[in-house]
């Protein structure tokens, strides 16, 4: 297979529930760490050391493997102004890139609108999940959102093909936008037409796909497989989105069991996905952003951790200049923000970098301001 220069693709993994940054990239040599985390601490010899100060949680060995190949940028101290410890408001902020006021539309939706202003391809943005994340929801922008690549297609219950064609024709006319019908109706119209157009194309993606990679049986791994299928089918998708169920990483309790299990699952899926692309000579076409809505309280609560602030995110791919970026927030008691890691790195800098240096877009209109960029793209 020969590769020609293709349009850059961004894969976004929303790891919901707020993973515990302090136990994800662990400041294992900081003496405060084991004081704060008597139950949840990871012993220094178990940490997958990045350098003498920090290292990955042991369940993240596959990501450490990619890191060692220079393909992972670790964005430390990431957060947003005036942290709010509500999952939902916080996720909204990540989705809309509007921390100060209530944003209604998504940053990726705006980026998609920029890339495909005439809505020539309903598959420019594709989400795999139950429900469209607000990051992709922007009025006047078409995106496909599906629960999987099986069971697509409108009015499939009509057996007679010519009758179905006729019914779909009426369907298309009934969902054509009507003047003055209001934003909800416009949205429903658009979604109906996009579903009609997108479903048939998306359904073809698995047909041309062969792979030696066996993804995990869990939903997240399967969705990442769908992402690979859609990318490799060459449907012109530029933003592919999926994630864990909301609340997955919300480890108020039993963190020692749930947390490694989740990171193990996520890390394996990312490794499989990367390998799959690499086998198809496509790994240079894709950059992955993995993020969560906020960090967790520095002091554990017994068997888990409560909601916190500063977090860590990951950017992964061949085009990525691997390494540590930003500063690990201080664990000194007087440097904490109400007991939480203090963020020092606006999440919109990471967004701006991805938009400008990877996607080749002007980030200012999308993020509605200019943000300092980081040097994690080659």
């Amino acid at each position, binding site marked *: 297979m020969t590769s020609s220069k293709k349009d850059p693709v961004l894969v976004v993994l929303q790891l*919901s*529930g707020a993973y515990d940054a302090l136990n994800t990239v662990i400041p294992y040599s900081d003496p405060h760490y084991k004081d704060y985390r008597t139950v949840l601490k990871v012993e220094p010899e178990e940490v997958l050391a990045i350098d003498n100060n920090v290292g990955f949680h042991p369940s993240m060995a596959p990501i450490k493997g990619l890191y060692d190949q220079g393909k992972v940028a670790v964005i430390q101290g990431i957060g947003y102004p005036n942290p*709010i*410890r*509500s*999952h*939902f*408001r916080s996720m*909204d902020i990540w989705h809309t890139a509007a921390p100060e*006021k*209530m944003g209604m539309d998504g940053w990726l939706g705006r980026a998609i609108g920029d890339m495909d202003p005439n809505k020539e391809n309903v598959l420019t943005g594709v*989400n795999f999940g*139950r*429900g*469209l994340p607000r990051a992709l929801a922007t009025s006047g922008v078409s*995106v*496909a*959102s*599906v*629960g*999987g690549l099986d*069971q*697509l*297609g*409108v*009015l*499939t*219950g*009509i057996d007679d093909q010519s009758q179905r064609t*006729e*019914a779909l024709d*009426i*369907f298309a006319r*009934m*969902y054509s936008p*009507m003047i003055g019908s209001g934003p*909800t*109706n416009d*949205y*429903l*119209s658009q*979604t*109906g037409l*996009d*579903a009609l157009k*997108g*479903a048939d194309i998306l359904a073809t993606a698995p047909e041309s796909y062969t792979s030696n990679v066996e993804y995990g049986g869990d939903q997240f791994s399967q969705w990442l497989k769908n992402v690979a299928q859609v990318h490799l089918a060459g449907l012109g998708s530029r933003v592919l989105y999926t994630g864990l*169920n*909301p*609340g997955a990483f*919300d480890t*108020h*309790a039993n963190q020692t069991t749930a947390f490694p299990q989740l990171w193990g699952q996520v890390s394996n899926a990312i490794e499989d996905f990367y390998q799959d692309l690499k086998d198809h000579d496509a790994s240079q076409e894709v950059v992955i952003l993995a993020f969560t809505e906020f960090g967790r309280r520095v002091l554990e*609560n*017994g*068997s*888990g951790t*409560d*909601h916190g602030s500063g977090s860590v995110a990951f950017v992964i791919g061949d085009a990525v200049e691997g390494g540590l970026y930003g500063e690990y927030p201080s664990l000194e008691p007087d440097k904490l923000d*109400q007991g939480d890691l203090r963020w020092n790195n606006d999440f919109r800098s990471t967004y701006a970098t991805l938009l400008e240096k990877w996607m080749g877009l002007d980030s200012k209109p999308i993020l509605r301001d200019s943000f300092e960029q980081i040097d994690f793209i080659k």
Partner: protein
Amino acid sequence: MAENDIALMGHLMRRAGFGAQYEELETRAAKGYEETVEELLNPKDHPDGMDLDLAERYFIEWNHFVRGVPEYITWRMINSARQLEEKIVLFWHGILCISDSKLQSYPTEYEELELFRRDGLGSFRDLLVGISKDPAMVYYLDNCLSHKGAINENYGRELLELFSLGVGMDGEFNYTEDDVKECSRAFTGWTIANSIPQQPYGRYAAQFLYNPDDHDEGEKTFLGETGNFNGEDIIDIIVKQPATARFISRHLYNFFVADDVEVPSWMDTPPADMETIKMLEEEYFRSDYNIKSMLRLLFNSDAFKNARFTKVKSPIETIIGTLRLVGDWATPKPGMEFIFDEMKYMGQEILNPPSVEGWHTGKEWIDGGTLVHRINFAADSVSNTEFPGVKSIIKKLADTGPSLSPENLVDGCLRMLGEYEISEETRRMLVDQNSKGGEVLTDSDDFDTTVAEALRMIVATKEYLYA
């Protein structure tokens, strides 16, 4: 019977219940609107609202709750004559959320649904006390892991953010991070008893336990008041806040009247219909936080009556409403998993809301994937001429005369679906589609297929996404 009385009754039954067949709408409209509201609020039927005897003999596991709670609640939504009781269970289930994927204990989840059925129309204060002692909730939000000197903030936070005050109102925050901590302290000691071992005793629901030794007896300052508060004192402070009145009123409005913006926006986005919200807030205080009083006022208000087809139906409303319409599942049979799969594909799996925030509503129910499932499910159901409800629609239309014009066919189907209203453009397209054969003879062999096909296209319209 005036058609607009039936149309209004169709609206009431879609909102205060899961919809009704045309004949039921006629009967209820004949009794009167206010009378029906009263009957929904104070049902006098059989305490179960249906004959559960047959179902319990069929679904024998219900007696043991080894599994079957999703089946049980679904069965009730479809078959109960006390429709508002089941609707209010769904209402609270979407706000005071728990999730089976964490609890994995149907007996315990069943107890919570019974709490909503019993107290869901009563005092909101009592309901908050009830939910704070509900073993499913105590476990779901980790209050059993919150101890004197080592609080777990999960319940304390969500009680304020998602169950009562909301993050903020009129641009101001309703509580601080310190309030969350103090609230959590007050609920220490509210825990669950050690569970009864499944072997050899079988499955039992978890039990609430107040452990005074683990309760933080220290002084707390919460929302500006100071004292040695316990959980009930905190709830007493919560329920008298204007923010709580606003929060509950907006939830009732969003669920029963018209789609509001999503809950996280409520701090900064005022209600679209402030007049109705104010009316509900006043009734909340006047009635000592009584949900039934608020709903009585709401259902009899013009704001409610004029809100026909302004809400995007939830997946469960779509599924249960369709099953009631076509008369499926009126008697027990195997295969109910099919219903739960549909709920999941459409984005509203009963007993498994995506997070403690519940489901996002309104147009957020719809994306390309969920829309396709919704349309296909409704289209396949109403075009199946074996279903008794579909048969009865066909018969009622056949009884109107020897033949039907394309217009009368489409309008008749819309009427039978509960007086659905669609735009003139859409109606024109449906009429055109049915015009090829001209008048249809109601005694012809393919009359039932003609009706089925017309129904199928109607439920695929944009308008049918609304209720």
